[in-house]
């Protein structure tokens, strides 16, 4: 039980608990958002443990810093503090969801014990693994097309969001 392992379990539990808090909290959207932030941050910590440094930082910056803030912004803008609607009559849906979730989990369990490699201890990582240098190099050599596509996507998203949010197209 090394320190890393302990930290992993701690953050994992934190992530799960906060995720549950986000989903099950039906009174307070802002609380849900804050729970989401906790999930994100603890996931970032787990990324650190997995030695994906850049990804961890990006995770905090984008998810923690931008996306959830956007959620909060919208919640506050629309003043949707207490939101939940009278519980619908979709017992069937809930049941089906429960079954589906069980199915997913069982599938994962089955898939996990197929491959012995997954149970093994991961070996050492190469020098500078997950640092911004390696990622950057890989991004701008092998995946440069991907970068271009991402930029296009973002442009489209900006325009779309603008058009959608404008009260009147003039």
């Amino acid at each position: 039980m090394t320190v890393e392992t302990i930290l992993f379990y701690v953050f994992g539990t934190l992530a799960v608990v906060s995720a549950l808090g986000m989903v099950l909290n039906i009174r307070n959207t802002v609380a849900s958002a804050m729970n989401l932030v906790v999930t994100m941050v603890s996931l970032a910590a787990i990324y650190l443990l997995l030695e994906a440094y850049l990804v961890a930082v990006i995770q905090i910056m984008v998810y923690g810093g931008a996306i959830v803030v956007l959620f909060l912004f919208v919640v506050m803008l629309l003043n949707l503090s207490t939101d939940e609607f009278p519980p619908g009559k979709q017992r069937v849906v809930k049941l089906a969801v429960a079954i589906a979730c069980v199915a997913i989990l069982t599938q994962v369990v089955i898939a996990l014990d197929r491959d012995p490699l997954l149970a093994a201890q991961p070996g050492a990582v190469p020098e500078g693994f997950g640092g911004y240098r390696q990622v950057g190099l890989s991004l701008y050599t092998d995946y440069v097309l991907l970068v271009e596509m991402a930029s296009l996507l973002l442009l489209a998203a900006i325009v779309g969001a603008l058009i959608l949010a404008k009260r009147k197209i003039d």
Partner: protein
Amino acid sequence: MVPLNHVIALSAILFTIGVIGVATRRNLIVMLMSIELMLNAANLAFVGFNRIWSQVEGTPTIDGQIFVLMVITVAAAEVAVGLGILLSMFRNRDSVNVEEVNLLKW
């Protein structure tokens, strides 16, 4: 370091929670958040696998994390557009209850 299957299990649990959120909550904002959660679960799996296969016969590979970055990009775009939709929906319906957005049906 923990073996990979714990990481994958964690990501599976998070994903399932996200599924529950998307499928049961009727508040559009929370649904979007849950989608984010599912994406993050996928990211976690990516990073975990990348941790295992951090090098392929000697040459370090980072592909998993690249994909995570791409997923994050897509997530950002998706949130921007999704919230835009939500805003316009709120303007028209004065609510963010997805069940009130049901014009398109038989």
